[in-house]
């Protein structure tokens, strides 16, 4: 009977504590939705949106091929040894570095040393470094889910290793790789510190990657810090939230497709 009482107390405590999580989520979402709903001024948000799109395309354009290539090497070609271990260590370390340090590096190296100045390009180069480990990890996981028998079947037909990878392994691993791309996009959309220090803070419509501009997240940060127009800030926050929600839905969709194809 003692146990039953103890259990009941524990149970209730657990429920109460974990409902804090849901409460917080609802609080944040609710507040932003309610206050941002009337304040979405798309016209004012176009420059940051364009800047963000530039950042995503260029950032992923660099990180995705490199990350996928590295993962292919690790999973399909490499033999266990010092080189592989150093690559994994490097990847883990890169993933552990806080974004501000990337901003620090980006500001000194891309901005100053390479003389790219405050620009979308500086920001994209910096953010690609941050997204690289994600791409490598998710691609590797995706490659691991491809059964060895597919590779054997292809090789036995006289295909070269590269053809096997290109025509059988990669297509099969595509959903997982796409998930990585979506995750990377989410990271880029939400990143502030590193971009703040490299792409700049001017509110203008970037017309080329060498232009400066602020992304949506940086825009929100500056609106909040300046404290002038909270209304605009709420609107921006809501837009950001919607983008993240959309990206989350994408991962579920891709995940669902993945499960369907493995169903047999």
């Amino acid at each position, binding site marked *: 009977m003692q146990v039953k009482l103890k259990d009941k107390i524990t149970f209730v405590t657990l429920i109460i504590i974990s409902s804090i999580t849901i409460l917080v989520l609802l609080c944040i979402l609710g507040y932003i939705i309610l206050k941002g709903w009337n304040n979405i001024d798309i016209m004012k948000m176009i420059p940051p949106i364009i800047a963000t799109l530039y950042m995503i395309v260029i950032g992923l354009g660099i990180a995705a091929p490199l990350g996928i290539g590295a993962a292919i090497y690790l999973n399909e070609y490499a033999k266990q040894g010092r080189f592989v271990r150093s690559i994994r260590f490097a990847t883990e370390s890169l993933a552990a570095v806080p974004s501000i340090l990337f901003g620090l590096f980006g500001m000194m190296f891309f901005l100053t040393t390479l003389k790219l100045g405050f620009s979308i390009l500086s920001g994209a180069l910096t953010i690609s470094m941050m997204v690289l480990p994600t791409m490598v990890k998710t691609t590797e996981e995706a490659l691991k889910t491809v059964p060895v028998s597919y590779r054997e*079947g*292809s090789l*036995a*037909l*006289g*295909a070269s290793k590269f*053809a096997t990878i290109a025509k059988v392994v990669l297509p099969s691993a595509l959903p997982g790789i796409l998930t990585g791309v979506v995750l990377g996009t989410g990271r880029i959309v939400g990143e502030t510190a590193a971009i703040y220090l490299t792409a700049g803070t001017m509110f203008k419509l970037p017309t080329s990657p060498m232009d400066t501009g602020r992304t949506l997240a940086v825009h929100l940060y500056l609106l909040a810090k300046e404290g002038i127009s909270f209304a605009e800030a709420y609107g921006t926050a809501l837009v950001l939230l919607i983008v993240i929600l959309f990206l989350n839905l994408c991962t579920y969709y891709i995940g669902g497709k993945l499960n369907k194809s493995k169903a047999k």
Partner: protein
Amino acid sequence: MNNIISIKDLSFYYSDFEALKNINLDVVEKEVLAFIGPSGCGKSTLLRIVNRMSDLAENPKVKGSITFHDQEIFDIDTIELRKKIGMVFQKPNPFPMSIYDNISYGPRMQGIKKKSELDEIVEDSLKKAAIWDEVKDKLRKNAISVSGGQQQRICIARSIAMRPEVLLMDEPTSALDPISTSKMEDLISELKKQYTIVIVTHNMQQAARISDRTAFFLLGEVIEVGDTRTIFNLPKEKKTEDYITGRFG
């Protein structure tokens, strides 16, 4: 009939383990040669050496000679070799693509792009694999959605589409139900009119049913090889007799 493959004094090691010892064996053109023997005695290992899938093993070392049309296999380009010597695996492994794409995978790799040519090859291969009638209306369907027996025949058709001379089959029916197995055995008897077939099987009755000659393996060596009827009725070696009569294995 010629010996299309000749194996002389072949020993094979992987990770310092001697998996095959002094194998001497010939494969005759357009015959069905069965490898029988208890688990782990080297049948599949030898089979995989013939199309050099053995290269994928851990630290593989080969001693001795194995020739295809009198050319040392290890001197031939792997990719070219595998185009002429196809393999069907124990567990059917069609690619997660349409049936059509599975069959046309090989020909497309060889540079055949014209749809009419590919259509012809796909139809021809599926007919030869005795599955054309069953799938001709669902060529776009994903190959992994059909039954195991059909998947296996699709894999055979996929290999046939490469126009090989030899088909290596590694226990092709062990994952199939009895009806599919019997269909497969009929298919093999048909296929041998055009292809040389080497088949590894755990099922002695199957070997007796479909093969012309049989090789009995034990612990990495070939104990006896010969005409199937002779092996099963009047084996020369005691070990062969013991295995066949079920005293072990």
